[in-house]
């Protein structure tokens, strides 16, 4: 394989930020390209869901508890966001964990507290634990809108694209902590691509890239675990059992990737009392992406953030068009915030 055509992808927003902050792209030899995949949980949430979230936040006596990342993500109408709704009177609170939202509901029994459960396998166990704890405390004013998404189906959807041209993947250590080495086997076994599980320090990312390049050059497709101190082969079975108890897989809609079967986690019927979608009859409309925003292509690694016609001109962190520019893990946010000197 010619050096100039090696394309590697990271599929985790934390990697995206770490790579941008350390300026790793500048240090790569020419011809090796590092792309960001669908690893930012807020970015892969489709516009219709954001609109429904804004609508939910506007309901009287409802408190929307959310991670900070979601606050500035624009809805399908320009200028709309949870930050805007908050300023206009909605009760939106930033929490650091799902459990904080449970405590909030207990402290304020007159409010209906809904936790916006965004994330991948990393946050799913925490969200499951919060639902279980709310059930144990018999909290009737707490519920979760589960928007949790899964790594494997999204990567497989990417790979099914006829234009797919990635030679290897950097896999996020913290997802692997939950799903284990086993959960990453699909890269070599099903996609016949090398994968290296790695941490988030610049040195760890660089080592991951080195190992990936060795495999690519040798024409290999193996799983390597460069995060052995914390990632076990079997992952964390207790966390997965908890996820299984509370959630079940369901078809889910992704920005940029479309509808993917068994790619999201919904709340099981047994825990319907804590399922905000059922409790409030939430329905996300299928809203088309307005304007020329190309977050969908950025998420799929088809477009460099800076190549989007809106990047840095119409679309900036203060006036964002798409989620990738405002989520703290978004590829456009990373590219904008940590623009290299030579870009």
């Amino acid at each position, binding site marked *: 394989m010619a050096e100039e055509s090696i394309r590697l992808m990271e599929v985790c927003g934390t990697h995206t930020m770490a790579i941008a902050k350390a300026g790793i792209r500048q240090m790569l030899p020419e011809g090796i390209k590092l792309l960001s995949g669908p690893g930012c949980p807020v970015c892969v949430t489709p516009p219709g869901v954001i609109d429904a979230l804004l609508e939910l936040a506007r309901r009287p006596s409802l408190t929307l508890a959310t991670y900070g990342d979601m606050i500035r993500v624009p809805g399908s109408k320009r200028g709309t966001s949870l930050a*805007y709704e908050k300023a206009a009177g909605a009760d939106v609170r930033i929490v650091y964990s799902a459990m904080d939202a449970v405590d909030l509901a207990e402290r304020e029994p007159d409010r209906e507290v809904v936790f916006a459960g965004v994330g991948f396998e990393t946050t799913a166990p925490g969200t499951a634990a919060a639902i279980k704890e709310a059930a144990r405390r018999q909290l009737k004013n707490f519920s979760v809108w589960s928007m949790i998404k899964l790594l494997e189906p999204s990567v497989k959807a990417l790979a099914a694209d006829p234009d797919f041209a990635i030679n290897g993947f950097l896999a996020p250590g913290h997802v692997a902590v939950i799903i284990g080495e086993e959960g990453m086997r699909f890269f070599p076994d099903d996609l016949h691509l090398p994968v290296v599980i790695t941490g988030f320090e*610049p040195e760890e990312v660089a080592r991951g890239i080195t190992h990936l390049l060795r495999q690519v050059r040798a024409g290999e497709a193996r799983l390597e675990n460069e995060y052995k101190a914390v990632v076990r082969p079997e992952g964390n079975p207790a966390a997965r059992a908890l996820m299984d108890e509370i959630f079940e897989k369901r078809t889910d809609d992704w920005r940029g990737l479309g509808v993917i079967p068994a790619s999201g986690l919904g709340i099981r019927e047994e825990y319907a009392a804590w399922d905000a979608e059922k409790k409030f009859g939430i329905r996300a409309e299928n809203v088309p992406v307005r304007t020329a925003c190309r977050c969908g292509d950025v998420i799929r690694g088809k477009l460099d953030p800076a190549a989007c016609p809106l990047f840095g001109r119409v679309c900036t962190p*203060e006036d964002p068009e798409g989620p990738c520019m*405002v989520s703290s893990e978004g590829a456009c946010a990373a590219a904008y915030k940590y623009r290299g*000197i030579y870009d």
Partner: protein
Amino acid sequence: MTEDVITLDYGSGGKKTSRLIEEEIVPRFENTALAALGDAAVLPGADHLVFSTDSFVVSPAEFPGGNIGKLAVCGTVNDVAMAGGKPLYLSLSLILEEGLPMDTLRRVLDAAAAEAKEAGVSIVTGDTKVVEKGRGDGLYINTAGIGELVTPGLSPAAIRKGDAVIVSGTVGEHGTAVMLARNPGLCEAELKSDCAPVHRQAMELGKALGADLRVLRDPTRGGLATTLNEFIEGTALGIEIREPDIPVSDTVQTVCDMLGLDPLYCACEGRLIAVTAPERADEAVRILHQYPGGEHAAVIGNITDQTPGRLIVRTKYGSGRIAAKLAGAQLPRIC
């Protein structure tokens, strides 16, 4: 402005704050003293005087390392000092919310009084208002300060290519300490705000370096990166700072890593940034080392003409990145 209401981002000290000030405020009050947009104004017609004001709305009002009363005195003392002034007199106005415990108020006022005494300033006028419960967050304080101009000529306009950029101590303590105080249980870290007056070292630098001291600024809201950006915005000069040389305590770094924050954008309340002629930088650092909190004072970078209007952070790996002003407040991330 695209928004038709004020969102919290307009108070973050970043780009949105700048736009609010430049588009909505300054044009309405246009005058030369205001136009400089410094921490304090040098008064035309009374140009031996420096004047500044600041409002304090920190929540919680009491945090490790200080409280809103201490902060209100230090904040204005420092603003006067950054403009080259020797702080002399302060006003102090209180907006109290119905239901505020009298003991809290006493602690806040005690801290303000102690800090004023320590800083050698007198609180000579003030005001007190009480608002209904729910109309204020416990208490807000506004202070204004007047000082005598002792180091004239401090201005970003005095900065030259090759000048040294110096920070007077570790950065980010105040911002991270308040964030932890706001969310107890987030982590076990022991962090104290760096809240302290820095006027003495500021005046000492001015006296020792004269015109070789170009500008002083305290990196409060928006932190080190935002303040450095303000120095060079719209100019032909840039700044390059060396990441390994920036003093950040291990605790602040750990808390920031955990929350997805960048210490370069976290507020300091007892630090100053000085730009000096390169040959006077070591002397300036030696002066700063003598003051409490100044043990880690260091030269962290230089003024360049390579990257006009841009702040570059050079990593320990040799790569560089632009550190622009943030759009709004830093938000903690999901995972």
